[in-house]
């Protein structure tokens, strides 16, 4: 069944897109990640213009994070105050990112910028996760102690504007969560991902937040950064395809439900190793595309850019 995408201006097989949404939703439910980092490259792979893929993905992520945050909210795992401070930074970062996106688009460098940021972030995070989970599996026999969280004091904790976050039992500079938010926002705008894979470790290691609150709080602020990204991309770059977002959403929601159930049966380290393998594979594929000679060294853009 073919469906015409009005903004991407192309016709795609609806079942294929639903299936992609389902697969990515399945993986995101299984591993508890947003899945944007898989979806954007997949969309580009089937021929959706990178700019539209990124803009639409932001829209889809709004829905994914809303449905994800509900479960955390019910269990009281959201630190709203910290989330709000983060999202102030997040919205600033998004605006900055959308602006950078537009500039790069006009310069003709957006595709390579998207690929490079993917290779860099996915390669780094994926590699680290892979090492860490491999080590954890080797040490399997050891008692299932949580990863040792060191409450170290580094220069970051000496920043001004200290604020008390009761829910997380933290007394830290507001600049820290806001700064993390800014980075997350830029990622949403340029890469079309929620940025959870970067926010979660940053919140654990830089903010020393209680692990139970991290996922809910990061999802909470991702709702707002992705919403801001959708709005700004739609308003300035015209790159949000509501039709495509709808298809991805339906597939993603269904896939996520199955993924969550399967995921609960897989041991944590193994799940992390699998996820890390996928992340690294995507990074390697994109890196390969950057260095391999292209099919055609010339490309064409019609209309005023």
């Amino acid at each position, binding site marked *: *069944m*073919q*469906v*015409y*995408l*009005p*903004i991407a*201006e*192309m*016709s795609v097989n609806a079942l294929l897109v639903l299936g992609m949404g389902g697969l990515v939703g399945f993986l995101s439910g299984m591993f508890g990640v947003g899945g944007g980092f898989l979806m954007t490259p997949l969309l580009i792979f089937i021929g959706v213009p990178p700019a539209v893929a990124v803009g639409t993905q932001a*829209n*889809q992520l*709004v*829905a*994914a*994070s*809303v*449905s*994800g*945050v*509900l*479960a955390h909210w019910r269990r009281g795992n959201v630190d709203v105050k910290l989330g709000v401070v983060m999202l102030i930074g997040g919205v600033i970062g998004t605006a900055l990112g959308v602006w950078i996106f537009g500039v790069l688009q006009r310069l*003709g*460098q957006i*595709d*390579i910028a998207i690929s*490079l940021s993917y290779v860099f972030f996915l390669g780094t995070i994926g590699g680290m996760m892979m090492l860490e989970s491999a080590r954890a599996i080797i040490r399997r026999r050891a008692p299932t102690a949580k990863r040792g969280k060191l409450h170290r004091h580094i220069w970051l904790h000496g920043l001004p504007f200290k604020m008390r976050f009761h829910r997380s039992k933290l007394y830290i500079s507001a600049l820290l969560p806001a700064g993390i938010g800014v980075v997350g926002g830029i990622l949403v705008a340029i890469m079309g991902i929620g940025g959870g894979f970067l926010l979660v470790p940053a919140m654990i290691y830089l903010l020393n937040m209680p692990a139970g609150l991290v996922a809910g709080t990061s999802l909470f602020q991702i*709702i707002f950064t992705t*919403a801001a990204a*959708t*709005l*700004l*991309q*739609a*308003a*300035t770059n*015209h790159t*949000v395809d*509501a*039709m495509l*977002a*709808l298809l991805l*959403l339906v597939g993603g*929601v269904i896939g996520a*439900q199955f993924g969550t159930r399967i995921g609960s049966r897989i041991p944590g380290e193994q799940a992390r190793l699998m996820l890390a393998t996928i992340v690294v594979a995507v990074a390697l594929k994109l890196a390969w595309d*950057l*260095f*391999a*000679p*292209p099919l*055609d*060294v*010339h*490309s*064409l*853009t*019609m*209309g*005023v*850019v």
Partner: protein
Amino acid sequence: MRVPRLGAGRLWVARGLGGVAGLALAGVLAVTLATTVWAQQLVADLSSHLIAITTGFTGTEVVLFGTTDGAGDVAIVVTGPKMPALVRRKERVLGMWMNTRTVHFSQAPSFYSVATSRPLDQIVSRTLLERQQIGVPQLTLAPQDSALDSREQAEFREALIRNKQRAGVYTPTTGTVSFLGDRLFRTNLYFPANVPTGLYNVEALLIRNGEVVSAQTTPLVVSKIGFSAEVYDMARHRPITYGVLAVLGAVAAGWTAGAAFRRV
């Protein structure tokens, strides 16, 4: 649009039926058409003047048919709306392939296809092809960048054509116009799913002894219709509203999904 003339009524009937492409019927009409259309050496029309891009659009065919006042060759040239184009060239930078050069073309047809009754080079001379801009190689595509040398001009022009052909919107091969008898001709014009929207010109040329003796231009509109058109219009003209609706829709969808699967 077509000027009212003798036989226009019958042509109109034929236009309605052309979509159904009843060959037998066309044959019957051919007899009547041939006797009534005296004044014009060439008359042609399309089975439809509107290509509607709906949500289920996967490309379409439009039948062009017409009649001549005697033997001769027919060439059909379909040109999409002209618009600016940017051609970029990648080069290796630190081992990566990166866009390093951009060339602007101010007026490039967004769509172009040709159909003829015989291979082009057999019916007209090269000069005529160039004068009338028949055939992809003959298209006038001049880069705006005056600093380009002629070799680079040719390179970017070819790149534009190659990319357009790969996208299927510059047809690399010449389609065939088939004659039914001496006078009645028809051809199927194919438009792919990614056909650019806008006002198209469909030009029918009658060629005798290597010269164009008669020509007729028919408009064709390619337009988004229905839901996809509304989405596109809103995204273009009321982008803020569109963005707000997209966000609200996503929030509603996510909320519904989260609530629906709560018990499962």
